[in-house]
């Protein structure tokens, strides 16, 4: 895949600490790439270095093969959707979206604004002010304002975190759709692993300023290289040094399948979650594990003696 954005050994030092440490990354043209990590892991700082708001202490950033880390934000063909949207409150939707086109003295401004409004389904709201819009609409104005410039890379800084949870899933789908339709490269920063897994072509997990692992959602979920990546992407049962995901952990009253690793245990609690049941069991050997089982299968009650087992293929192992 052709790279549009390359980070080479990027570090960022602040007086008191190192926010980003030796991050190298290639983002392919047209890719939906996510940076995932807890707050303070350096993902937003990385994004801000690409946007041009922060200078890397060392390392290089290349856009279309050309070095850009010495350029001002307005000299780079990237654009940011901010977490709080940062819409201009004194300008209408139309004027907000025109802003970048006017600064670049581009042609066919009206037509391009109309097209992008259609894309984000805001036709008819041109003359509203940001204060007259709902949270979801503001988010789409912010998106349109950047998309209309046709950036080489669109940078999104937790753009869904200010929305309420019901809306978030819907907007997530829209975002993915818009990315597919426009073919614009998205660099998406989030701390929500479900968001990153469901949206991304590839993602990178960051922790403590370092990039832990890069890969497809499947890669990272099934073959995490570190314990941090494994636990950040979902629940893990740690048994004798190996990790097993709850959906790969089985609980039965009868014997285990052949070839499975099996341990006797006692049910501590069974929690009904609607689409599945979480069975918590304490193994005689020590640790407590959670198994995600179908609500259509066996049911378990507190204190029952069971077998906990899993297939060796489902074990997460680390170097």
């Amino acid at each position, binding site marked *: 895949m052709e790279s549009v954005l390359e980070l080479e050994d990027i570090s960022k030092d602040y007086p008191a600490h190192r926010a980003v440490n030796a991050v190298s990354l290639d983002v392919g043209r047209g890719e939906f790439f996510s940076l995932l990590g807890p707050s303070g892991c350096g993902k937003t700082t990385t994004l801000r270095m690409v946007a041009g*708001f922060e200078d890397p202490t060392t390392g290089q950033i290349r856009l279309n093969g050309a070095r850009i880390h010495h350029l001002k*934000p*307005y000299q780079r063909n990237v654009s940011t959707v901010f977490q*709080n949207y*940062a819409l201009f409150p004194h300008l209408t939707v139309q004027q907000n979206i025109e*802003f*970048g086109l006017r600064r670049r003295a581009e042609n066919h401004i009206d037509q391009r604004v109309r097209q992008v409004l259609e894309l984000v389904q805001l036709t008819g709201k041109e003359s509203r002010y940001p204060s007259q819009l709902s949270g979801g609409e503001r988010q789409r104005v912010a998106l349109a304002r950047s998309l209309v*410039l046709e950036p080489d890379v669109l940078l999104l800084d937790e753009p869904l975190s200010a929305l309420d949870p019901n809306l978030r899933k819907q907007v997530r789908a829209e975002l993915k759709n818009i990315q597919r339709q426009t073919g614009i490269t998205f660099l998406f920063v989030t701390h929500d692993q479900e968001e990153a897994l469901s949206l991304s072509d590839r993602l990178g997990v960051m922790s403590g300023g370092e990039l832990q692992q890069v890969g497809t959602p499947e890669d990272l979920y099934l073959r995490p290289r570190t314990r941090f990546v494994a636990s950040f992407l979902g629940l893990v049962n740690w048994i004798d040094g190996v990790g097993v995901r709850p959906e790969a952990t089985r609980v039965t009253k009868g014997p285990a399948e052949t070839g499975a690793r099996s341990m006797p245990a006692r049910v501590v609690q069974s929690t009904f979650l609607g689409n599945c049941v979480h069975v918590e069991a304490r193994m005689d050997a020590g640790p407590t594990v959670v198994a995600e089982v179908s609500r259509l299968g066996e049911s378990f009650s507190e204190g029952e003696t069971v077998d906990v087992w899993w297939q060796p293929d489902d074990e997460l192992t680390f170097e």
Partner: protein
Amino acid sequence: MKKPGVKWLAAPLAIYAVLAYLFLHLPLLILSGFSFNESRFTVWQGFSLVWYRAAFQNQQLKEAAWNSLIIAIFATVAATIIGTLCAYGFWKRSSPVLAGSLYMSLVTPEIVSGISLLAFYQWIFRFLRVQLGMHTVILAHVSFSIAYVVIVVMARLRTVDAQLEEAALDLGANEWEAFRYVTLPAILPGVIAAALLAFTVSFDDYVITSMVAGVDSETLPMVIYAIARRGVNPVVNAISALIVMGFGSLILISERLRET
């Protein structure tokens, strides 16, 4: 929403408020009242506009008012531009030491500022062939008005989201365009309020002005003071009432703008 409170307290509080405002403004009300008095003494003899007519016919007062207006306009424009940029600078990069030293000019007694400005001018004049005049008054007024402008504009800037400028830069605006098209519109009501305040402060000033004014640059407060010292003259009442009304409305406009 119903405001919390005790019913029987409402009436006493209202009376208290009226008394407090009377204490503040009764002198001005009496002055305004006597400016319409036919007699030149503080005995009411009937309504008359004779003192207003006298004020408008007084050549010295007219010249002084004109001087004050010119000085206030120039000082306001300069102080507003400098003060706004100064506040913008503090907003971008906070500097408690620089901001604090700026506010020093607010707490320095006026007479001290006046004397030090005079000393400064006299020292400078040894190198430059200039004399005290309108320009020295304007410079003095610019210097003490800046702090007022900075305070008012800073208060407005604190309500502005700093990320808006980042968004502007991100969308292709350079630093000047980001200020011009995003931050300035957001703080404009504050800037206008600051300008009105600077205008008022400049027009009113007596102490500093009297130290640095030349023979051709007597301002309205200086002439009023001179007339008042010569004895009771209701022309002073009339002109003072006019000033109070004029600037009262300016301050009201300024307050309105600060709230938007």
